[in-house]
């Protein structure tokens, strides 16, 4: 609760709304005991007095009635009516929603059909129709506004109730012989109260506005009684000669509705877990860079990653996803980067072209050099011109990584045309050719397909074709076969291998599967807890893993590929990268761990083969 209030007031606008609304409600409550003129006391000698005149702080209206007094009494009335309408709509809507959602079946069907019908009306129109029947009057306007809002509540609450009605404790209660009424009252209702309250707090502003509107039209409160809407309606004829009589009630409505809306938004935001965790932040065009120093290049390499550090900063917590990782890739070479999920392998790969979602991602150190030129912190335009042209990506799940609403041909054509000023027709020809290159049958027709019309394997071929569109030098493949079944997986791997041979591509291949690495990669680097723990030529590592973690990974490869069982096969969980232990990150899961392993920094040692372990399985 205190967290809730803190979040609410951290949102300054919501706090402002709460204060304004508080003052208005307080004034409305105190109105009867404040020293005011009677609101209906007419005095034709004092018509249309301006604000700040003697004895009438806000002036008077067309009958010489004190505006301040009428304003406060009107506010009282408007607030009461708005609140009552929200309460009635909320309760009636919730009752309908609960009954429909709980009993389901035909009850649900019939009720919801009726609700849909009501929602087919533009709702101010429905309110007018109801007032037409009941006749003008404040109470009738209240009823009309409440009724037209019932469908909204009924629908919301029904949805929530359906979710609750199928939980175990409801079934248990039913089996225990509890009656429907008791189950509804003890199990269902308590769970939906918060939802009703939130829905009410976000709609009460509307209700005040709508009743004011009906009164403004002359269909709500009738003279001499006046709410804010009818004050505005009466003042309309004198808009030009005495504008203050309109401005005073109008501004009051605006203040009330605005403060209610601000507060309602604040409440909703404070209760939204996604906002709390910052999960609704939008990723920027390139990853944010906060780098103090640029490390010297530690050697040659077509693509060199030196001491790369990428973090996720969520609130005050820092997750070191990539911790001083160095890698190099030669032209035409395939390097496998392997590790469990959460080891930082994907983040490493995405950091190369600044594609780590930011916020929360930040590159805090290191360098990524392409042909000797550092890309970290490079101007966006340079980065963009390299993306897809020099370094292209293939992602894991092509269903979510291809745009669902564009034809695959158009996506390919776009990929070509962002880097090369060729005509649409030319690009189209090349798109078809690309699809043929990745062995998509009937390519000329398939360019018109949408991603959802293709099978998973075909989609991934499209993903590969898109990566090849500009004949890049490097392809970074981020688990490109994980979402596919085993036979398709083998085909895709064979395709990648063939393309590599034919086009002289360098590939950085990210996977959690040693079987895949064995088929494709020249060298392999093993990541654990954001660091490289072992690297070397694939064959050597496979035959004699030096790091205990590598050994385990290899041990649980099934015959070929398809090894999602790996994760379960290693006892213990991968470390959370916001609280890495001192010393070796693998120590809690390692059966060779000694005291020395838990102290100090352990270095990555060796020449062509390197390992970060005090007691390696074989000497590197």
């Amino acid at each position, binding site marked *: 609760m205190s967290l809730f209030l803190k979040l609410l007031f951290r949102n300054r606008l919501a706090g402002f709304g709460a204060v304004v609304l508080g003052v208005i409600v307080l004034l409305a409550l105190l109105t009867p005991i404040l020293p005011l003129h009677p609101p209906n006391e007419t005095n034709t000698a004092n018509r249309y007095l301006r604000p700040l005149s003697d004895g009438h702080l806000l002036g008077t209206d067309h009958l010489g009635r004190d505006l301040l007094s009428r304003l406060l009494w009107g506010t009282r009335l408007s607030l009461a009516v708005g609140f009552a309408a929200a309460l009635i709509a909320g309760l009636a809507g919730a009752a309908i929603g609960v009954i429909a959602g709980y009993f389901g079946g035909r009850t649900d069907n019939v009720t919801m059909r009726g609700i849909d019908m009501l929602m087919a009306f533009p709702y101010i*129109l429905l309110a007018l129709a109801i007032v037409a029947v009941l006749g003008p009057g404040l109470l009738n306007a209240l009823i009309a506004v409440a009724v037209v809002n019932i469908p909204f509540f009924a629908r919301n609450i029904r949805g929530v109730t359906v979710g609750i009605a199928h939980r175990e404790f409801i079934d248990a209660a039913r089996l225990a012989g509890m009656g429907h009424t008791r189950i509804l009252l003890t199990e269902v209702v308590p769970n939906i109260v918060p939802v009703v309250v939130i829905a009410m707090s976000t709609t009460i502003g509307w209700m005040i506005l709508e009743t004011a509107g009906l009164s403004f039209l002359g269909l709500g409160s009738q003279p001499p009684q006046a709410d804010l809407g009818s004050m505005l309606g009466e003042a309309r004829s004198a808009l030009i000669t005495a504008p203050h009589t309109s401005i005073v009630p109008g501004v009051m409505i*605006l203040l009330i509705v*605005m403060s209610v*809306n601000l507060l309602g938004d604040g409440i909703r935001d404070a209760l939204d877990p996604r906002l709390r965790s910052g999960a609704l932040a939008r990723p920027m065009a390139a990853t944010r860079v906060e780098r103090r120093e640029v490390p010297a290049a530690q050697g040659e390499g077509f693509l060199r990653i030196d001491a790369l550090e990428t973090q996720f900063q969520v609130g005050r917590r820092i997750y070191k996803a990539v911790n001083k990782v160095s890698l190099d890739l030669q032209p035409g070479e395939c390097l496998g980067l392997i590790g469990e999920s959460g080891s930082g392998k994907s983040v490493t790969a995405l950091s190369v072209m600044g594609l780590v979602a930011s916020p929360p991602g930040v590159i805090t150190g290191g360098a990524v050099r392409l042909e000797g030129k550092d890309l970290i912190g490079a101007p966006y335009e340079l980065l963009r011109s390299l993306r897809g042209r020099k370094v292209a990506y293939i992602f894991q799940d092509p269903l*979510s990584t291809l745009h669902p609403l564009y034809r695959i041909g158009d996506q390919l054509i*776009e990929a070509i045309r962002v880097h090369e000023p060729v005509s649409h027709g030319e690009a189209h020809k090349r798109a078809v050719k690309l699809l043929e290159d990745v062995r998509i049958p009937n390519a000329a027709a398939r360019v018109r397909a949408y991603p959802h019309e293709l099978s998973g394997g075909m989609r991934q071929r499209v993903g590969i074709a898109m990566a090849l569109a500009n004949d890049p030098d490097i392809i970074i493949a981020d688990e490109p076969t994980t979402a596919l079944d085993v036979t398709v997986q083998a085909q895709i791997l064979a395709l990648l291998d063939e393309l590599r041979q034919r086009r002289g591509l360098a590939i950085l291949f990210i996977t959690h599967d040693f079987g895949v690495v064995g088929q494709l990669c020249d060298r392999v680097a093993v990541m654990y807890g954001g660091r490289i723990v072992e690297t070397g030529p694939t064959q050597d590592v496979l035959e004699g893993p030096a790091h205990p973690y590598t050994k385990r990974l290899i041990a649980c490869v099934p015959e070929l590929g398809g090894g999602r069982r790996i994760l379960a096969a290693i006892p213990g969980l991968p470390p959370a990268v916001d609280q890495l232990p001192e010393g070796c990150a693998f120590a809690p899961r390692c059966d060779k761990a000694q005291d020395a392993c838990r102290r100090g920094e352990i270095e990555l040692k060796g020449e062509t083969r390197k390992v970060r372990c005090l007691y390696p399985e074989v000497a590197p």
Partner: protein
Amino acid sequence: MGGYILKRLLSAIPVLLGITVIVFLIMAMIPGDPATAILGSYATPENVARLNRFLGLDEPLWRQYFIWLGNMLQGDFGRSFALNRPVLDEILDRFSATLILAGTAFVLCALLGVIAGTISAARQYGFADKAITFVVILGISVPSFFLGMMMILIFAVQLRWFPVSGMYSIWGGGDLPDLIRHLTMPAIALSVVATGVVARLSRGAMLEVLRQDFIRTARAKGVHERRVIWGHALRAAMVSIIPVLGIQAGFVLSGAVYIEMVFQWPGVGRMLVDAILKRDILLVQGGVVFIAACYVGFNIVVDVAQAWLDPRIKT
């Protein structure tokens, strides 16, 4: 696509029937009988009975409904007793004015709302986002009728940029520029709330989409950020924005009532309010059914647009 449109048209029939039932039932709940309302309280019982028979009010309720429905299908919405002319004629005369007003307001709210929401999302937490968010809050909280009055005060009375009210000038008016001068203020006043709602939802939809994997793919291809936002992301976000636009269309169509009152705009909204105050039931009944039917029709257009935009919807 053609098949989908036909299917959608057919599915509108039960909705339209439902609307007539609801309107009929609401109107049947009116206390007292219309004959007395028409003839006044001094009418003799014989006269009331004769008029009731003439109006078909001595029949059972369900027969009354079918007679009413049958007549409407033939274009006979009854006669307005206050205006002494056929209801449909009156509605059709007025409806074009409302359509011009609401249509303009709708186009404004759709364009400005989507643009503002997209900018807001693209610059999340930046200055533009904060400024837009603030204006939006203000926009959705201001009563349109009050806004209209203030606009009259400032732009018509003080600055004299626009005429105070009406649809055409009495002398020498009637052409398009004249209409536009009269239309500007009411259309803006009517669109403000809807623009706010659309902007807000567009922002949310865009933020949702911008985190999706296919946006990262677009960036990885080297697509320019401007095109990522206004092309890839907005296109995908439109799928959830369009239904909101449908709801807002209903909102501007019925919210036109207030604006027509403030600006003396000769539309159906004002006609309805007058009819309610005069208890001219047939006119209210006809007007409500007519507007609701238009709204149903518009929603079909929205659904078709949605299906055209999203190939995943089975057509």
